[in-house]
């Protein structure tokens, strides 16, 4: 009797297992991308570009997209958490970390504060490094010149950025000054409400330096000189832009863009999508999309991604406390 029961249960579980893997292997041939911003924005481009490469390279049968703007991505995040949709991923980037810090004074588990811990981090796929630049005709040739001038007269250096105080643009410059031994809170930061306006501020001489994403400056390289990027090594798209690290300032920062699953997403699904996102980066279809958008491949899957997010949260919390924005 016992034997028969055992055999039956083994058989039954084997069938279950087979059917489970069978359904799962066909489960991810389509992905629905939820985008927390409007058409044409950075998140939108990342999701649509990734979806395009995944389908064209044959990893997916189809990809669908949904723009869900509101609350700086908060609405899409809440949607993922509340409805736990199947086969759906959310595109996000560094602001996900920043918003949970600024709006909630740090993450408190289980308090409904909406952070990356409420969704399932699948993988970071691309990134943009931070950059500090001066106008082409500026007397400052490198970041050391800027630091020297700042230490001689703190009022002589004003830093432009394309968003509010405490935003990513501000943090990039603050990190650099912090690494140079200055109090980042004392550095005058002039926020503009768009990257283009910040650039205009730099070129007209209202500010001496601009602190923003490298991607933002790539189109303006005729007019600005990049004097420091926050990458570990020089990047191939801008080989003449020195890193801050090589100048002796230990700063590394990347504005990552990646994908998240709904809470409760199975490990299997997570791993499958993470693998797919990594494998697609080796295809020519991805390269077409990447080159078109001048993205930097920074593949950072699963556990590595979670660890990275944890470190970034800590670093940013410390810095923002120093800046007095939280």
């Amino acid at each position, binding site marked *: 009797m016992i034997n028969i029961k055992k055999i039956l249960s083994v058989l039954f579980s084997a069938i279950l297992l087979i059917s489970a893997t069978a359904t799962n292997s066909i489960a991810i041939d389509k992905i629905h991308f939820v985008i927390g911003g*409007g*058409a*044409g924005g950075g998140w939108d481009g990342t999701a*649509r570009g990734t979806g395009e490469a995944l389908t064209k390279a044959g990893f997916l049968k189809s990809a669908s997209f949904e*723009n*869900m*703007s*509101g*609350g*700086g991505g*908060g*609405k899409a995040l*809440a949607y993922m958490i509340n409805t736990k949709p199947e086969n759906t991923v959310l595109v996000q980037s560094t602001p996900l970390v920043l918003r949970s810090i*600024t*709006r909630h004074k740090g993450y408190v588990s289980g308090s409904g504060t909406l952070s990356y811990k409420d969704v399932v981090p699948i993988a970071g796929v691309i990134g943009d490094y931070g950059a500090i630049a001066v106008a082409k005709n500026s007397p400052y040739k490198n970041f050391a010149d800027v630091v020297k001038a700042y230490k001689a007269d703190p*009022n002589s250096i*004003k830093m432009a950025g394309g968003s*509010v*105080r*405490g*935003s990513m643009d501000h943090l990039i410059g603050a990190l650099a000054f912090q690494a140079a031994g200055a109090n980042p809170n004392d550095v*005058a*930061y*002039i*926020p*503009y*409400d*768009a990257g*283009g*306006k910040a*650039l*205009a*501020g730099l*070129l*007209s001489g*209202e*500010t001496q330096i601009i602190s923003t994403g490298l991607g933002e400056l790539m*189109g*303006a390289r*005729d*007019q600005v000189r990049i004097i420091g990027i926050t990458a570990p090594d020089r990047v191939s798209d801008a080989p003449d832009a020195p890193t801050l690290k090589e100048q002796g300032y230990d700063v590394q920062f990347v504005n990552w863009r990646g994908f998240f699953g709904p809470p409760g997403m199975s490990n299997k699904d997570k791993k499958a999508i993470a693998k797919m996102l990594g494998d697609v980066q080796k295809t020519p279809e991805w390269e077409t999309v990447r080159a*078109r958008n001048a993205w930097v491949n920074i593949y950072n899957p699963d556990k590595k991604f979670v660890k990275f997010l944890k470190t970034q949260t800590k670093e940013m919390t410390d810095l923002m406390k120093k800046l007095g*924005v939280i």
Partner: protein
Amino acid sequence: MDIFSNISLILDAKTLALILGSTITGVLIGALPGLSSGMAIALLLPFTIYLEPSQAIAAMAALYCGGTFGGSITAILINAPGAPPAAATAFDGFPMAQKGQAGKALGMAAVSSVVGGVISLMVLITFAPTLARIAYKFGPPEYFALAIFGLSMLASISSKSPVKNLIGGLIGLFVATIGVHLTTGISRFTFGVDELFEGISFVPVLIGLFAMSEILVQASKSELLLERIKFSAIKLPSISEFKSCGKSILRSSGIGTFIGILPAEGGTVSAMIGYNEARRWSKNKENFGKGEIEGVAAPESANNAATGGAMIPTLALGIPGSATTAVILGGFQIHGLRAGPYLFEQQPDLLYTIFYGMLLANFIFLVFGLMGAKIFSRISLIPRGYLWPSVFVFCLVGSYGLSQSMVDVYIMLISGVMGFFLRRYGFSPAPIIMGIVLGELVENSLAQSIIIFDQNIFMFFTRPICLLFFGLTFLSLFYRPIKNLIMKGKKDE
């Protein structure tokens, strides 16, 4: 300059068809409240990959021109500006439609739009590279002075009592403070509501204050007072009416081109200032806000002149002059073109393609607008029982469509109810809108200037452009008392 030899650049069937299609699409999208030309371009951008770069850019430029004009159609007919730049057009356009002069208002809007558009394009083609440098002189302190000058007209922007206009303006300024403050990062009046962190978006407030409150006003009227159907609605303006607006149109074209060139401000501010100035210089000041045809001509020529103006820094510096040109700049990048000082040297043809594309777009919407005016103006002949419920649907869809957010719909409904009561007690929506538009500019530019000046606000008086605008502000506020004083002095003699 070999302007004419370059016309062949757009003279092929595909390009012409694209420009025609884009212009008409632009007009139609622009006419729908909540759908802007910027959004239309963003959505169409991926499809332009299959076009030649020059064709794609010409199509986007045409869409931009058409969209800016299209906003005036709904502003005039149903008091729901199709796009923010058309907000000032509703101030007098809708009262005209109510008086049965919808055709006149639409015709005037079409003609003045074209004049503004063409003048700014002439400036674009002639001075683009040089003019772009002037824009650099406009930093936060200058924007602050410009915005203060704009606000000095608050008290007199509508025919309602000056005190009520000032209260309205303050309401607008207050709404503009909601959200995260630019220079401190502190959030204000957000009450922890996620959607409020980025501030109240302007479009749902606009739709609410104008269209939604109009629906409520119409609903509160007794059906017994059925207005007689006015067939005069489809009459176009006469030559003498065009002539009487000539000065305003020219002035606004200049204002619009100039403000368009500034990297931060586009059609909305241009139209507001164009309207203010037309009123300031008009002999019939008291008719403004009640259906004065000049009040339609001025903002329309200004906001269309801003399209050509906004293209100047976009092309010459790679710095967009408005939200829509920022999207167009994105289009450049997709096609591997880099806007900036080297663009004209490397791609001289491109400038002409854009110029002709936009020029053609202007004439297409002139024809479309004038012919369409007769058709569109029949909307005002639709019985109110059918018209206003459909407008309500537009209000809902328009405020939702902007960013697919229900919060925007609630903001629209709240502004609608507020607008209804404010109008009932003699307030006009115009100063509220002006307060919101200029409020953000005035606050941000002041905060930025203070950092630039190392906390010394007296530095404002060291900048010539600031002094000029402060002087104009002083005159605009004290012109009458000073004039009275002098007159009195003369009498005493």
